[in-house]
C-alpha cells in the first residue's frame, strides 16, 4: 500500500512514530495518541462490545456508513488505547473489501510497533484485529 492511500491522520501517525528514536518516545506517543481516542458512551461500554482474550478490557464498536466502516474502540489500559488509536486511523473509512485486503501487521511494522502483535502478548491487539477482520469478512 503506497503512502498516498493513507488518510491524513494515518500519515501523521506514520511520520510521528517513524521519527521516534527511543522506547520512551514511542511510549509517550502512544499515550498521546491514546488520549485522542473518541470516548465510548456508557451504553457502548457493554459486554456485547467487549473483545475477549486480553489482560486489559477492550471494547470495539463498528458501524457501517454506506460502503465504509467506522470503528470506535477503548480500553482501560493507556498504552493499549494508543495502539487502538493508531489502528483506527488506518482502518476507518475503508470499505469491507479494502479492510479484508489490508495488511495490518505491515502497518504496525511501519510504525515500529510490530512487537506489540507477537503471539505471546495478551494485550488484546491481536484479538481486536481478529474481530475487525471477522466483521469485514462477514459483511464483504
Amino acid at each position, binding site marked *: 500500500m503506497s503512502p498516498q492511500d493513507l488518510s491524513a491522520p494515518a500519515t501523521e501517525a506514520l511520520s510521528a512514530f517513524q521519527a521516534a528514536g527511543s*522506547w520512551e518516545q514511542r*511510549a509517550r506517543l502512544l499515550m498521546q495518541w491514546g488520549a485522542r481516542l473518541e470516548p465510548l458512551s456508557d451504553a457502548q461500554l457493554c459486554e456485547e462490545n467487549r473483545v475477549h482474550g486480553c*489482560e486489559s478490557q477492550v471494547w470495539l464498536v463498528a458501524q457501517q456508513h454506506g460502503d465504509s466502516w467506522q470503528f470506535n474502540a477503548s480500553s482501560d*489500559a*493507556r498504552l*493499549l488505547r494508543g495502539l487502538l488509536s493508531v489502528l483506527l486511523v488506518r482502518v476507518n473509512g475503508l470499505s469491507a473489501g479494502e479492510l479484508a485486503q489490508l495488511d495490518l501487521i505491515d502497518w504496525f511494522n511501519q510504525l515500529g510497533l510490530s512487537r506489540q502483535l507477537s503471539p505471546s502478548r495478551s494485550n488484546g491487539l491481536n484479538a481486536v484485529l481478529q474481530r475487525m477482520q471477522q466483521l469485514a469478512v462477514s459483511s464483504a
Partner: protein
Amino acid sequence: MSLHSPWRADFPGILALETEHQTYLDSAATAQKPQSVIDAITGYYLHGAANVHRAQHVPGERTTRAFEGTREKVSQWLNAQDPAQIIFTHGATEAFNLLAYGLADVFQAGDEIVISAAEHHANLLPWQQLALRKQLTLRVLPLADDGQIDLQQAAEIIGPRTRLLAVTQLSNVLGGWQPLARLLELGKTHGAITVVDGAQGVVHGRHDVQQLGCDFYVFSSHKLYGPDGVGVISGEAQALQQLRHWQFGGEMVRSATFESAEFNPAPLGFEAGTPPISSVIGLGAALDYLSGQNPTAIAAHEAALHKALLAGLIQYPQVKILGQPEVALVSFVVDGVHNADLAHLLTEQGIAVRVGHHCAMPLLKSLGQTGAIRVSLGLYNNGNDLLRFFNAFDQALELLQ
C-alpha cells in the same frame, strides 16, 4: 546491591539473556537450566537414544538405567521411602489430573474435596471437574489477610466428610509458606487423602515427604532447574494402592488380550506410553547439580535477594504487595497504574516479569484484583538484576504518572 550469585555462571541461559539485555525475573514460571542439565540431554542423544523398559539391547539397557537413576535421585531428594513410590508424569498439571482420575473411585456422591483459595488452576480445576462428575462438594479454605490459609476456619471446614485435601505448599502468587503441618494433621485426623502442590515449594529448600506426612507430593521438573515435560508424584505406599489406572498403553500393561488386560502397579502402571526420557535424564542432572551446592548458601542468597526486592518495593507508597511474601517472589499492583501499562513499559526495557492472573483467577479475584505484576527469583539472579528492575520500574512510573 552487590548481591553476587556464585551459581549464575553455571546457567548459560541467564547469561545469554543478559547479553541480549534481558533481565530474567520470571523463574516461578520456568527456570533456566544449568549447563550440566543441557549436557545430560545432549549427551543422551549424542550417545544414542533408546526406549526404556522394553529392550534387552545395550542402548535400551543404558537408557533404562539412566532413567531409573533419576527415579532414585528424586526419591532421595524428597526422602521418599522407596524409588518405586516416584511416578513420572508430563508435568505437575498432568500429575493432578492423574490423581483426580486415579482416585475417582474413592469418592461417593456427597463427599467433600477441600482445597484452598490460594490454589493454582492445576490444583483446582481437576478437583472441581471431578466434583462435578461425581456430585461431590468442593470446599475452599479461605485465606487470612496475610495470605495464609486461615487455620481456624480450616478446622471447621475439614471434617468427617472430607475425603481429600489438596493444598499448595507455596503459592505462585503470594510467595508465603502455607501452614502445611497443621493442615495435613487436620486432614489425616478425618481420614482424608492429602495432596500437596509442591510446584513452587520444591524449588526453595529441601522437603522431606515422610516428615510432611502427605499422601501425594507433586512438582514439575522445569521450575526446579530441570527440563520441561516431566512432572513428579511422590506417593505414600498405601495411598498409591488406592490409585486406579487412568491412561492405558505401553509398558503399564502386564498382560493383555482383546477382551481384558492386567496392569502394573506404581510406578510403571501410571506411566503409559513412552515417557519423556531425555527430560527425565535431565531432571536427574538437575538434582545432581543441586545436590552439589551448599544448601545454606543458596537459602541465604535467595533470602537476601528477596529481602532486597521487598525492601525496594516497599519504598513506593503506591505499590500494594499481595499477601506477605516470604521467599522466591513478590506480586504487586500499583495504585492508579494499569498492570498492562506497567508490563508494557517493563518489557520495552528488557525486564522479563509476569503480568496477569498467574493461572489463579479465583485467588486474584478474592484479593480484589484482576491481575498483578510478579517478580520471581532464581538462585542465579543477583543484585544487578534487581537494580535493573528498579531502574526500569522508576522509568515506567515516571512515564505513567
